[in-house]
């Protein structure tokens, strides 16, 4: 029940603005992928093409090997929940949560009504509530329910927590993980709350200004980033040949954030030189990697 995503030489332009610029990558089926990028980096534009919400200017997206654009076999496998969710009919006074669920059940072949009812309960929503009267967080919860209960082979959430309070966000993360384990599928999470969500990621794609910055397993990525603290000259010697993402100094003590394989020899040298080596968070790594003034070599 999961599907792979293949992005090839994808470009999307809005008039003179290039939102996605020749992107190519593959997302393996049956994993939770994180899509990270700064504001305006092209994440939503990329996902819009992946889900056939928009036509690519050039290049293509394939779902399980089939082109997604105007291909019902492929589009049926994709559920893209964008922000508070546009899989509901709108703000018409007559549109209730139950109408949105009925719409989804009519059009999503793998829709699970019992699970949707359970999620309604977990998010504390009233199925008879009018969508136009919901808070942004409640609308986001409706989007999340439509995404999870749709059980699509490719389920994409783009900032789907907008307006949700912390308990609701944690309900979302718990349910996503539990349902993913029970019904494996390909999940793509685009988020700015990296620390909060990163424990779910198996692989991460980082894009910047419409281009692929890196794609890696989260554990490998984390292992390549390190903070090194100690006497300034020893730290400088240690960092030679590594990409230094940031550097701070207090008196004679320097702390640098490096990116690259450290290797056992280098770690032994560091310990011998009295350097303190620590991990860095995915969020810190992301911040440094997307720092436009200090991109890694």
């Amino acid at each position, binding site marked *: 029940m999961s599907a792979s995503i293949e992005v090839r030489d994808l470009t999307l332009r809005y008039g003179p603005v290039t939102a996605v610029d020749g992107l190519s990558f593959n997302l393996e089926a049956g994993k939770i992928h994180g899509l990270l990028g700064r504001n305006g980096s092209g994440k939503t534009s990329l996902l819009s093409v992946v889900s056939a919400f928009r036509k690519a200017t050039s290049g293509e997206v394939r779902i399980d090997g089939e082109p997604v654009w105007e291909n019902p076999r492929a589009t049926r496998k994709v559920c893209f929940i964008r922000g508070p969710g546009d*899989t509901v009919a709108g703000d018409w006074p007559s549109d209730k949560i139950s109408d949105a669920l009925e719409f989804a059940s009519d*059009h999503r072949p793998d829709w699970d009504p019992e699970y949707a009812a359970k999620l309604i309960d977990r998010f504390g929503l009233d199925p008879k509530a009018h969508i136009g009267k919901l808070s942004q967080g409640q609308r986001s919860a409706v989007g999340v329910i439509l995404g999870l209960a749709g059980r699509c082979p490719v389920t994409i959430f783009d900032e789907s927590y907008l307006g949700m309070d912390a308990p609701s966000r944690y309900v979302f993360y718990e349910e996503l993980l539990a349902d993913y384990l029970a019904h494996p599928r390909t999940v793509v999470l685009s988020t700015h709350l990296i620390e909060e969500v990163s424990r779910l990621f198996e692989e991460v794609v980082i894009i910047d200004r419409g281009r692929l910055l890196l794609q890696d397993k989260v554990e490998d990525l984390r292992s390549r980033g390190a903070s090194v603290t100690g006497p300034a000259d020893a730290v400088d010697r240690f960092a030679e040949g590594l990409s230094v993402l940031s550097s701070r100094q207090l008196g004679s003590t320097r702390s640098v954030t490096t990116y690259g394989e450290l290797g056992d020899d280098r770690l032994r040298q560091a310990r011998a030189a009295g350097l303190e080596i620590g991990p860095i968070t995915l969020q810190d790594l992301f911040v440094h990697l997307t720092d436009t003034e200090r991109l890694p070599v």
Partner: protein
Amino acid sequence: MTSPQPISITRHRIKMDGAGIAFLWVPFVVIVGLVVGIVAWFGEISISGWETASQIPRWYAGAIGIHMTALYLPVYLAHGRTRTEFLRQAPPAIAIVTTILAALMTAGFAIEYVVYRLADWPQTLSSSHLFESPTEFGLVFVEFWLAYAAWMVAGTFLGASFYRNPALGFLMIPVALVMVALVEGSLGGNATISALPLVEVLPAVPQSGTVGRAIAVGGGCSVVGWVITWLVARDLPVKTQAA
């Protein structure tokens, strides 16, 4: 194992719009009846009230068309349907929903015939039509069908155009007006044409009451209107909603 198939868009639209029409028809009949009753109480009934009331469903048909593309098409796309599926499966739904609407409006004339006869009121038509008398139910149905289909299709390309780009939507308003005016003219519906906004700026609309010509003009305009909808919607992007 193959997944179950989703409901066809044709069936879904009939379920949504057909149910809406059926739900609104009884209150509509009651309101028209009340208005006729009030007029009869204070004065004299000299014309068919249902004929006058039949203008309102034209706008309702247009609203269904707008609703179908501006509101529902993006939701279909967000639920994994394609533009091609919509553009292929919506026309049969429009035909069936129009049939339901035209049949109910024809039934309204039949009800009015019985009521007027009991009250001894003349069921006189105040405008020219394909039919000479409201009891020519076949022709009444054909006229309503052609009119409502044209209004609904005009609504679909207006809705798609406004969703795509408001400037395109405004550009399409005269196209929709010309299309509807041509169809109404072919039905002999001078009352409807004069009720259309901005219609005085249009060139004189040829009017005729012949059935063959009405079917050719009405059918042709609806087909052309759907081609415009196709051109506007075939690569319609789902817009990003404001957070």
